[in-house]
């Protein structure tokens, strides 16, 4: 079986992550990649797609439904087993830690499947990294907004210059061992109370 002959299905409630995994697989030469999100006719859709390999996020509640499907073999034509070969415990551990699980058609050779699962693991990890960075950037932006608003209030209500307002926030943050944004939030709250 050539690479492009594998039919791979990516099931993920997070469409962004699913897209990243899909692109990784396509760029590696797998052409038959489909993806679906949460779906209440999951069984029918999987039957229609007849995938050789399913990549699904480990925590997806749909996995409980999938496992029932695989147990009742009459539901789908080919029995599917979970990708976990005892001899491959490192890959399994990495997969579990990255939040990836996979189900494959029984009988597919492990060495053909491993690169697919490893691709999914690396994409999941990359997605996590991206999400962490985005969350940090968002938090920073939010902090800056708070500080700007507190500065504005101090300038308007207390007649301070911009530098004086900022230095006041900073001095208090250092004295109380808190973040400047937290002090800014307190300032905003305090001014709101007065009105």
């Amino acid at each position: 079986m050539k690479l492009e002959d594998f039919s791979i299905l990516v099931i993920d409630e997070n469409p962004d992550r699913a897209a990243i995994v899909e692109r990784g697989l396509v760029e590696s030469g797998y052409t038959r990649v489909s993806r679906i999100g949460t779906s209440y006719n999951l069984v029918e859709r999987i039957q229609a797609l007849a995938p050789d390999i399913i990549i699904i996020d480990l925590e997806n509640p749909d996995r409980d439904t999938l496992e029932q499907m695989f147990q009742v073999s009459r539901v789908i034509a080919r029995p599917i087993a979970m990708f976990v070969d005892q001899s491959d415990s490192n890959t399994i551990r990495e997969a579990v830690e990255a939040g990836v699980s996979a189900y494959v058609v029984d009988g597919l050779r492990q060495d053909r499947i491993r690169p697919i699962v490893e691709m999914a693991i690396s994409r999941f990890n990359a997605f996590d990294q991206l999400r962490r960075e985005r969350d940090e950037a968002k938090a920073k932006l939010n902090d800056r907004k708070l500080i700007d608003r507190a500065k504005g209030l101090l300038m308007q209500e207390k007649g301070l210059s911009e530098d004086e307002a900022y230095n006041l926030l900073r001095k208090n943050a250092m004295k109380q061992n808190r973040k400047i944004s937290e002090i800014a939030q307190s300032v905003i709250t305090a001014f709101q109370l007065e009105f």
Partner: protein
Amino acid sequence: MSLKQVRLGFVPLVDCALPVVARAKGFAEEENIDLTLIREMSWAAIRDKLSYGVYDAAHLLAGIPLAARLGLGGMPSQRIAVPMALGRGGNAITVSTRLYQRMLEADPAAMHGPRGLSARALKKVIDEDRAAGRPIMSFATVFPYSSHNYELRYWMAAGGIDPDKDVNIGVIAPPRMFDSLRNGWVDGYCVGEPWNQRAVFHGDGVIVALKEDIWARSPEKVLGVREDWVQSNPDTVDALVRALVRSAEWADQPENRTELAQLLSGESHVGASFDILRASLLGRPVLKPGDNPIEAPDRHVFYRYTATFPWLSQGAWVGTQMQRWGQVDATVDFNTLISDIYRPDLYRRAVKGLDVALPHDDWRVEGVNDAADRAFVGPDAFLDNSIFDMRSFAGVGE
């Protein structure tokens, strides 16, 4: 002495109470355990994270350690030990209000008789559908190897229904059950609380049988730990079991149940409304929208009736149900296998020195409702009055 870290995964259900209480009420800390609780939305996820060391311990369906040992579902065999049970009760069979009306019209006598036999009315509805050429109905349970699956099938079979032919039985994760019923994707389900009460409170479902109507002493969730973890951390296993047994004792007191409902209602725990959880925990569930609550004192049993003891005969019974429904080959000898998975020896070792009453044997003949030790083990009737003697089904000696 530094605290020992223990990571425990759980699924949002009333019977995650013991680990939640152990952490919130300080029973874990008193045993020098720093207990971290992680909420999971699926049984497959919790099983995998326990198996591969992300968790040290888990709130598990009783059938999962058996299925894991046998390598079912395409999984390689995993050695998960069960040092204790996490209480009993809490499941129910709920049907849509529409199906309930049909059952009531088809067989009012069955619907007003014992709840354990209410499936006779469902059988009549199924016969009507068949005669009219309608598609078969769909029911859901929470996992292939769940007590819910075996209870739903037991109840149906007692009503003359073949659960493999007369209906579709699928699997939906517990927190999604309620939406599935509400949206008409399933006609009924068997799930743990609060997901039955929630359907009743919202007017979408009617409870037609409680777990205790099917088998009063039937086993429910267990504590699962990896066998290699048991071997390398014997003192921690003992301490964890002690903390959870003491939590069970606390959770069983009627005066603590309201506080327990409050604790469980938090988003990081069960995340259902306090009123729904309290109705269930006080043993006063509402079965039908608009009805008064019924008195069901054994709705949730955490400690009394040996509810934390890992009875070999209860584990073996789960094994017989796996065989009954073709999940496991009939040649598997669960009587031998079960004492390698259920570990009453660990339980006895852990609670030594605590004031915990222990049964003389690790197994008993199940289903004897008028046994001499009834006050100790609790009511024990099956809906069909059957008796389960684990010695008789694979020739295990006394």
